[in-house]
């Protein structure tokens, strides 16, 4: 889900640009502390690898196929902070060279995929990678990274005032769910093939500070799931009424009043309320991510 320019309303893209800049700056700092600076080329090569790996199709049946999205695989091989930096770079190249995602919307895409997506891929691996649930954790990382990206993107579009009816939302979430399952399956299959070649390519995360991370994980999953429920419940409940009334009013206004801008004043308040709720959610997620970054950095220093 690469959001192009022109889709998000100004408060949404501006706030997400700000959130993305602050998190990427802090993640880049902790990556620089973590890795030897002469290993920077390797991060670029891994980014190019994710690009190229997307050219390899995985058959799903019924003549269709999917491909690797990559954040969970990066997390397992590079660690979370470096993965976020690599994902950010991939998104920059996609937006600039391939017109895949907008430039003003780059903050939103970076926030969804490089920050929240990587975090969602990392948390299960962080918590369960040591025990018997290791495979499950890798699968869940792939699954959650796709679901949280989809949930955030849909929420941002809804907050920006793009109307999607319940059937459209239902079908898209069905598709996202299938894609997420596929990403989990692909990630685990690729990790298995890597381990059979060279086990030290797959990194085991440290297992200190479990409770903090577990609560962060719970918070992130809750936010991802309930954020969307709220976002999708709102336009279906409140706004559908306003929308019904609005359509007839709209038609009248086109004939009577050329000042089309002012006709939506009533709906404007609902919009501001929703935008406010969305921004609070974004602020909470940002603080969570910054705290996590601080935590990782401190652990590395110790």
């Amino acid at each position: 889900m690469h959001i192009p320019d022109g889709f998000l309303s100004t408060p949404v893209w501006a706030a997400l640009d700000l959130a993305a800049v602050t998190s990427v700056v802090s993640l880049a700092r902790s990556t620089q502390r973590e890795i030897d600076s002469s290993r920077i080329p390797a991060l670029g090569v891994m980014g190019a690898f994710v690009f190229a790996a997307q050219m390899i199709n995985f058959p799903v049946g019924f003549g269709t196929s999917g491909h690797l999205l990559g954040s969970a695989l990066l997390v397992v091989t590079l660690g979370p902070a470096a993965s976020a930096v690599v994902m950010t770079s991939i998104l920059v190249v996609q937006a600039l060279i391939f017109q895949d995602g907008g430039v003003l919307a780059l903050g939103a895409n970076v926030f969804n995929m490089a920050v929240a997506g990587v975090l969602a891929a990392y948390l299960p691996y962080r918590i369960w990678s040591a025990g018997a649930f290791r495979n499950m954790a890798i699968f869940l990382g792939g699954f959650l990274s796709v679901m949280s990206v989809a949930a955030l993107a849909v929420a941002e579009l809804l907050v920006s005032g793009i109307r999607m009816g319940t059937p459209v939302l239902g079908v898209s979430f069905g598709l996202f769910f299938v894609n997420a399952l596929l990403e989990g399956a692909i990630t685990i299959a690729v990790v298995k093939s890597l381990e059979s070649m060279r086990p030290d390519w797959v990194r085991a995360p440290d297992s200190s500070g479990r409770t903090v991370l577990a609560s962060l994980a719970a918070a992130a999953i809750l936010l991802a799931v309930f954020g969307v429920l709220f976002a999708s419940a709102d336009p279906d409940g409140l706004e559908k009424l306003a929308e019904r009334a609005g359509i007839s009013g709209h038609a009248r206004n086109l004939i009577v009043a050329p000042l089309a801008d002012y006709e939506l004043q009533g709906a404007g308040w609902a919009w501001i309320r929703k935008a406010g709720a969305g921004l609070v959610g974004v602020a909470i997620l940002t603080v969570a991510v910054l705290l996590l970054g601080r935590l990782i950095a401190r652990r590395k220093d110790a």
Partner: protein
Amino acid sequence: MHHVVIDRWSRRASLIHAREPRIKLIALAIFLISVATTPGASAAAASGYLAVLIAAILLSGLPLGGVLARAAAVLPFSAAFAVVSWLSGDTQRAAALIGKSYLSAVAVLLVVATTPLERFVRAMEALGTPRLVALVVLFLYRYLFVISEQAQHMRVAAACRAPRRTRLSGGIGFRAAAGAVGVLFARSYARAEGIHRSMFARGFEGRFPTVALDPPRLPDFLFLLLAAALTLAVRIGVRIG
């Protein structure tokens, strides 16, 4: 491949190619923000913005049709959402989604296709992008050409060995595909190690000894002034007209 064409275009010479990259980035930001904040879906505003873009493309000497067609890569995504908006009765939104996303894509493509990526990224760094991200973007871009070619070779090789499987899914079996990604990872990793060793031997310490960007000159400022004036004229014209 798409990125090869863009790379070739960016190394030509013209009035637009010659402009200072930071100036072009700022002009791009002004244009994108104007488009994003233009209310509603006014056909007059859209044609005004398009006229500004077409004038710039003609000045750059790039093929007009080629640039406009390549930017259309954004349209399938926009069109899907436009149909959804249109079905829910919001025709204005539908038109705005298609118009705004396409105009923005043309503007980004124009700047990227007239600025070699290493200069573009230098300008991003000068405007505050973290150095690590800038470096990783440059390395990613450099090895994108190499590693995607390798993936292409592997795909062709797999198609040659198992032609019947490819007809159905455009690929190979699931586990074989996972193995292929694993092998691609191994080759990329080996390549990264080789690059690391040879760069280390040549004294790479995590920083390129690049020549600093020249400060913008008078023609650059004139370009920025003109670009901003035209863009804002369209943007303000919408409100009045």
